């Protein structure tokens, strides 16, 4: 009982810290990146949600927003970038192309049919491209998901 109370509090504390400082990676692949930039700019201001600090390296970022068409040539690079990120790491798949190939679905010989073929995706944001409001909702959904995480219980209480 005592452990439970302490661990829950620590979980909430960690989750609160994590969800309110989600640093995305500076990583745009196609036209969705324009909307991502607009989301980060002053009008929509992603920094209100703590996710406005676009990091220039995967080592310092928590969330990868896959914004745009993932070509087969780029897919191996996306995978490498994801592997370079430090835990905990999250992926937002933004736009139809990253979700499922988009307009390149039927005849796109060079396009990966969804970035979830190479990296695990946490939140899918539909749209072609999604409006900044959609991306903000995607970020908020990810924050809700992080708020419900119980990483410590899975790791520690199991062996207690």
């Amino acid at each position: 009982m005592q452990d439970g109370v302490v661990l829950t509090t620590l979980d909430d504390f960690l989750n609160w810290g994590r969800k309110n400082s989600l640093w995305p990676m500076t990583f745009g692949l196609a036209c969705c990146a324009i909307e991502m930039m607009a989301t980060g700019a002053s009008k929509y201001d992603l920094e209100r949600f703590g996710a406005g600090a676009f990091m220039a390296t995967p080592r310092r970022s928590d969330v990868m927003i896959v914004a745009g068409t993932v070509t087969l040539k780029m897919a191996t690079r996306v995978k490498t970038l994801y592997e370079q990120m430090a835990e905990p790491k999250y992926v937002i798949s933004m736009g139809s192309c990253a979700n499922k190939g988009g307009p390149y679905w039927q005849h796109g010989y060079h396009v990966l049919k969804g970035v979830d073929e190479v990296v695990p995706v946490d939140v899918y944001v539909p749209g072609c491209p999604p409006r900044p409001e959609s991306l903000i909702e995607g970020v908020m959904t990810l924050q809700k998901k992080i708020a419900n995480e119980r990483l410590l219980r899975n790791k520690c209480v199991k062996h207690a």
Partner: protein
Amino acid sequence: MLNQLVELINKNVPGANATAFIPEDTAKLDGSVTVEAAKILDIATWLRSNTEMPFNALHVISAVDYVEYFEVCYMFAHYDVENPREVILKVKLTDRVDPRLDSIVSVYPAANFQEREAFDMMGVRFNNHPDPRRILCPDDWVGFPLRKDYVYPKMYNGMEVFPDSKMNFEDREFKARQDLINKAQKAASVDEVQ
């Protein structure tokens, strides 16, 4: 202008065999000059260096697949305040297996990336090109995507290009969709009769 250019090319470059295509309605179609493929480097050198009708810029090189043969189109332009001009030069390549052409990078440096793209997408090889690599596709890509007889790859680097679990071609086919609409309309009309 095209007739004059054809005369000049035939006079100055032996064996160029230039012919002009002048459409009836110039608002709809552009005129062009067709020349011998083997002489393209000589012609480009002459176009750049002559004094009668020079062309100081290369706009674009594009390759077209006409199933029986390939056609490579060059667009040359002359940037001049008093007398600007533009011409489309076409060469025909009948060899489908290994189409080859002389590179004009030594004359027009702008041809470098354009020729690489023509090679990448259509498989036209350029002799004496300084950097004959692919430009858009990965280096280990198989085939030339814009050819009419291109076969889509199934796998690339261990990634499935068209995963069965995500594909549902039948729904997307126009005819299938049309059949669905017809069926629904028929059902609706039967309902009305009853």
